[in-house]
C-alpha cells in the first residue's frame, strides 16, 4: 500500500493568541499551526500555559470571569473568536477530553455516548444506536461494554471512563479533538491503551494533546510544541524536538534537566 501524496493541510492555526487572566499568568502571542490528521503535542513544565492555550482553542475560557482572549484562532481559516461566532458551534467541531474522566454520572453508558447527538435533537433510535457503536469502537471500548450499554457509566473503571469520554467526544464528529493530559489520572495499562487509541484516531481527526509526560509526547505525537512561561519556545517535528532541538531551553527540558 502506498501513501497518497498530499501536501500537509493546516486544520487549525493561531495568530498571536493571548490569554490574559489579569494576574500576569496566562499565555502570550502564541502562533502555532496544527496539521490535519496529525497528533500535535504541547509540552512544558507545570504552569507554562499549555492547558490555558488548549482551552482557548474551543473557547472554554468564555465561562470564566475576567479572562480575556485576544489574537486569532482559525479553524479551516475562520476565526473562532470573530464577532458573531457562537461558541456552541465552535465546540461542536472542536471536541475536548479532560484530565479526569468526566462521564455524566446519572446517565447510562449508551446515554453518555449519544448525549451530544440526542441533546441537539437527534431522536432516531437506530441512528443513535449506530453512532454509539461506531464511537465506542473508535474509542476501543465497544468489546468491553457492548453487553451492558444500559448500565450506569459510573460502574466503569477509570481507564474505561476515559475511553467513554473519548467516545462521547467522537460521537459528534469533531474535526479537532483537544486532549488535556488525558492519561494523568490513569494507571500504566490504561495509559497504554489510550496512547494506542490516539495513534488510531489521528486517521479521522486532528489531535492536539497536552501532556506532562515527555516520553508520551515522544511516543505518540508527530509534532511537538514546547511551552515555557506562557510562550512557545520551539515547535517542530517530534523526532527533531527530542533528538536535536534548536533552543537550549528545549534541550534542557526534554533531557529532564528541569520541569
Amino acid at each position, binding site marked *: 500500500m502506498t501513501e497518497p501524496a498530499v501536501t500537509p493541510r493546516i486544520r487549525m492555526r493561531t495568530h498571536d493568541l493571548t490569554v490574559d487572566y489579569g494576574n500576569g499568568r496566562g499565555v502570550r502571542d502564541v502562533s502555532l499551526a496544527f496539521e490535519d490528521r496529525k497528533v500535535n503535542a504541547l509540552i512544558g513544565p507545570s504552569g507554562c500555559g499549555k492547558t490555558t492555550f488548549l482551552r482557548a482553542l*474551543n473557547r*472554554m475560557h468564555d465561562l470564566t470571569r475576567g479572562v480575556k482572549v485576544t489574537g486569532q484562532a482559525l479553524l479551516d481559516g475562520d476565526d473562532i473568536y470573530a464577532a458573531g461566532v457562537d461558541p456552541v458551534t*465552535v*465546540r461542536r467541531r472542536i*471536541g475536548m477530553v479532560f484530565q479526569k474522566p*468526566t462521564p455524566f454520572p*446519572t446517565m447510562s453508558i449508551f446515554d453518555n455516548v449519544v*448525549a451530544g447527538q440526542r441533546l441537539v435533537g437527534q431522536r432516531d433510535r437506530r441512528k443513535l444506536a449506530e453512532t454509539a457503536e461506531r464511537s465506542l469502537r473508535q474509542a476501543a471500548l465497544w468489546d468491553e461494554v457492548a453487553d451492558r450499554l444500559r448500565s450506569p457509566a459510573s460502574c466503569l473503571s477509570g481507564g474505561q471512563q476515559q475511553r467513554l469520554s473519548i467516545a*462521547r467526544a467522537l460521537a459528534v464528529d469533531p474535526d479537532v479533538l*483537544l486532549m488535556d493530559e488525558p492519561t494523568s489520572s490513569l494507571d500504566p495499562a490504561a495509559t497504554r491503551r489510550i496512547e494506542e487509541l490516539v495513534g488510531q484516531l489521528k486517521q479521522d481527526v486532528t489531535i492536539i494533546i497536552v501532556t506532562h509526560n515527555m516520553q508520551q509526547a515522544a511516543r505518540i505525537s508527530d509534532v511537538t510544541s514546547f511551552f515555557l512561561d506562557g510562550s512557545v519556545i520551539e515547535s517542530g517535528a517530534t523526532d527533531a524536538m527530542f533528538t536535536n532541538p534548536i533552543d537550549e531551553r528545549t534541550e534542557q527540558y526534554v533531557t529532564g534537566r528541569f520541569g
Partner: protein
Amino acid sequence: MLGLIILASLVVLVPLLIVIWYVVSQGVSALNGDFFTKDLGGPTRAQFGQPTGMAQAIAGTFFIDLTALLMAVPVGVGAGLMLAEYKEHPLNPLLRVMNDTLNGMPAILKGLLIFTLVVRPTGTFSGFAGALALGVVMLPIIARATEGALSLVPWSIREAGLALGLPRWRVILAAVLPVARPGLVTGVLIAFARAAGEAAPLLLTSLGNNFLPRDPWNPLEYLTKAADTLPQRLYALAVSPYKQWHAMGWAAGIVLLALVIVVFFVGRLLTRKAH
C-alpha cells in the same frame, strides 16, 4: 471539654423532647375519629359534647400547602439556577442579596404583602392568597437549597457537556440537575416543612374558617374562599376562651408535628435512596 459538648448537645435535644412530650400529653385526649372527619363548627359543639373536629383545617392545609409548593418550586429552582450557574450574570449578586433578605424577613410581613397585593384588590380572604404567602416563605429557602445542591456538582461535568457543543441550558438540564436532584429534593422538603408550620403569613391571607365547604374534595372551595389551616387554627383555638378548644389546639399541634416529621423522614429516605 467533651463534657461541655455533651451538655450543649443535651440543651439542643431537651427542648425538642419537651415540646413533643408536652404537645402529645395535652392533645392526645382530643384525638379521635371525629377529629379527622368532622369540621369544627361553633364553640357550643365542643362544650356540649357534639361531634366536632379539624377536618376543615387538615384539608385546607393539604390543598393550600400543595398549591404553595407547586408555585414556589419552579420559581425557587429557577432562582437557584441563576445563583449557582450564572455567577457572571449582572443579576446574580443582586438576586443573592434580595434572596437572603427575603429569607430573613418576618413571615407576618409576607402575609401583609399578600394582603395588600391580593386580598384587598380581590376583596376576599382566600386559600389562594394563603398559598401565595406560604410560597413567598418557601421561595428563598428553595433557591438557596438549589444553589447549594448545584454547587456540589463538579464543574468538570459542565465543561464536559459544553465541550460536546451543547448550549449551556441543555447541559444544566440534562447533566447537572439530575446529579443535584437528591439535594434539591431535600431542600424542597425542608422548605415545605418550614412553611407548613407557619401561622403568621396565613392570618392576613387565608384567615381561617370553622366549616368544611359543601364539596370538601374540591380544592377550589378552599382556594377561592377564606380557608382553615392547622397552624393558624392552632393559634385561634389557643387564644379562644374555651377549655375544650384548648385541647383540640394541642391535638392540632400533634398533627402538625407528625406532618413535619413525616416530611423530613421522607426527604431523608429519598436522599439516601438516590445515593
